[in-house]
């Protein structure tokens, strides 16, 4: 028999640096996407996603139409109002979908490899830990990107009503993508940190709730206490406690994509925009509102908040990716001290 191994494979190419990483990312992404897109599953998920999005859009449109055309016979800007309401509803729904899917797509990325005992096979190849982490994240993000792309025709229905420009839609989708990146990175980090996928999924859910509803609640509570003159230390200067007597920082809400989308929605508003008022309150940007903080529709704090929130999410994502790479690497330098057991030789067959 010929030498089937040496005759065919030859030595692998020695790739260098970035090319090596790209090769690894490509290998991981191809493998992950093959799994995700195989069979009817992907088709069924995209169909359900589109039915949900389209059905929701239809319901919002019908609701707004009934509301605006009843009573006094409607307004001259009814069509634009429907368009804006539809846009708001779509952004909220898509943000919710991304918040659910992004961490769920990456929750098992590393922990499943550990559970299935495939991580050792992977880490003994020359593929770098960076390539493993980035490849996993990219494949999860490309799956979410596919769902978002599929929703664009439905979201684009707002253009038939008016009130929303293409630039508003682009901004909304940029926030959605950044949200997917951030929550995907959070999911990946938790997956690399925790051994079990079940635990990683639960932790991710808690993190999502904490960073959205939790931060929102804390902000409202903090603001209310401050506005009411509540001082936890009774007015004495005690450093940290005293700082709680001041306004809550807007950074508290940077990882809450709903607030970032409010800023995007604010950009579409021409009247007494509720979302603009919220953003003004969060950023404490009274001057931007003009007229002493009254939103008159001429001077608005447009695009003042979401770029900062997006930048914060991107930077934090990069930090989480770097830490995840360290957690995946078998020869990592930074180790969290925890008790480990020696690998036990296999029991008798």
């Amino acid at each position, binding site marked *: 028999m010929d030498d089937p191994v040496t005759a*065919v494979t030859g030595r692998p190419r020695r790739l260098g640096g970035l090319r090596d990483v790209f*090769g690894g990312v490509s*290998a991981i992404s191809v493998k992950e996407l093959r*799994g995700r897109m195989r069979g009817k599953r992907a088709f069924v998920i995209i169909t359900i996603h589109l039915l949900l999005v389209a059905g929701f859009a239809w319901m919002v449109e019908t609701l707004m139409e009934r509301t605006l055309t009843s009573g006094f016979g409607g307004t001259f800007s009814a069509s634009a109002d429907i368009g804006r309401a539809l846009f708001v509803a779509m952004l909220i729904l898509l943000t919710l979908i991304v918040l659910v899917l992004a961490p769920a797509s990456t929750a098992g990325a590393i922990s499943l490899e550990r559970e*299935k005992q495939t991580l050792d*096979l992977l880490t003994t190849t020359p*593929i770098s830990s960076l390539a493993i982490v980035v490849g996993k994240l990219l494949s999860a993000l490309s799956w979410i990107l596919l769902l978002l792309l599929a929703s664009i025709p439905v979201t684009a229905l707002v253009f038939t009503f008016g009130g929303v420009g293409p630039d508003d839609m682009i901004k909304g989708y940029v926030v959605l993508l950044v949200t997917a990146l951030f929550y995907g990175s959070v999911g990946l980090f938790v997956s690399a940190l925790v051994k079990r996928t079940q635990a990683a999924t639960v932790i991710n859910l808690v993190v999502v709730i904490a960073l959205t509803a939790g931060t929102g609640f804390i902000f409202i509570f903090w603001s209310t206490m401050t506005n009411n003159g509540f001082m936890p230390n009774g007015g004495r200067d005690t450093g940290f406690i005293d700082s709680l007597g001041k306004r809550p920082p807007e950074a508290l809400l940077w990882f809450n994509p709903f607030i970032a989308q409010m800023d995007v929605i604010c950009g579409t508003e021409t009247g007494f925009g509720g979302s603009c008022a919220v953003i003004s309150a969060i950023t404490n940007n009274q001057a931007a509102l003009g007229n002493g903080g009254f939103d008159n529709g001429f001077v608005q704090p447009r695009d003042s908040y979401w770029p900062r929130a997006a930048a914060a999410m991107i930077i934090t994502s990069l930090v989480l990716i770097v830490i995840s790479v360290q957690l995946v690497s078998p020869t990592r330098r930074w180790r969290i001290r925890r008790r480990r057991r020696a690998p036990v*030789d*296999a029991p008798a067959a």
Partner: protein
Amino acid sequence: MSIVKATGLVKRYDRTLAVGGLDLDVPEGEIFGLVGPNGAGKTTTLRILSTLLVPDAGDAEIAGASVRRNPNDVRRVLGFMPDSFGVYDDMKVWEYLDFFARCYGIPADRRRRMIGDLLDLVDLGPKRDNYVQGLSRGMQQRLCLAHTLVHDPQVLLLDEPASGLDPRARVELRELLRELRSLGKTILVSSHILPELEELCTSVAIIDRGQVLAQGRVAEIEQRLRVGAVFRARVLGHVDEQEAARAWFAAQPDVVTADLLDDGTIEIGFHGDDEGSARLLAQAVGAGLRITTFSRAASDLEELFLQVTAQDPVPADIAAGPPPAQTGWTIQ
């Protein structure tokens, strides 16, 4: 020439010393067996050699590349099959190999041919389009072995490759490893199933409590240690005849013990080489003993293992004390 060389490897998990100053020298082209009981340090040693663990002290070189300094170079020259490995769901057999070939940066045109040839080598050609999770344990084992070969490595590290396999699959695996050796691969294989290693390996290292107690060819170690063998003989006749035969054996030089077992078998503790055992049998027949069977009671490697580990050369405090400064020892 050594292709795998470990010097003074130490690995500690919290207060447990898994490997305590281990030296290993694996010549090129051998099927080298790591023999030892559960918890002896075989898996830790293999995981250090495969760059999955960083040793606390010492170093190892594989084909001249250091596992500490150049782990990536080491990964390019070795294929590792862990003792317990999983398979990816939703992946076909060819996709499994294709994925690992991509990990090694093998170009697309070579991948297709290589996958076909590797599947033929491990006898999984007809299963090419089957899902990996649908394969039997033996087939998955062979597929995992095939994945270690996608980059044509010089060294294969196989941790308990036959565990969980049925006898037929074991024989097939053994044949496959022999074939790989004939292709020029050096194979380092760990197991605690000694007869299996004995049939397969050209050299062995006996490991216990994180140290190599003896290494080399089985016959050489045996010679160095002057290890004896246990033979079992069956003699025709009544109990008196069997008792007389036992007494005859007991009186022979090089026979340490001779016991008559309940089933009529005589167990002979013999301290001699193959020449001596052949002479003993000839003399027994010449003395008129009606012998029906005369065979070794256990494998050489088993005896060797028991003898070597019974000498208990590892310091008693090794499991709890600080890492020893010495670089392990071998029986030379």
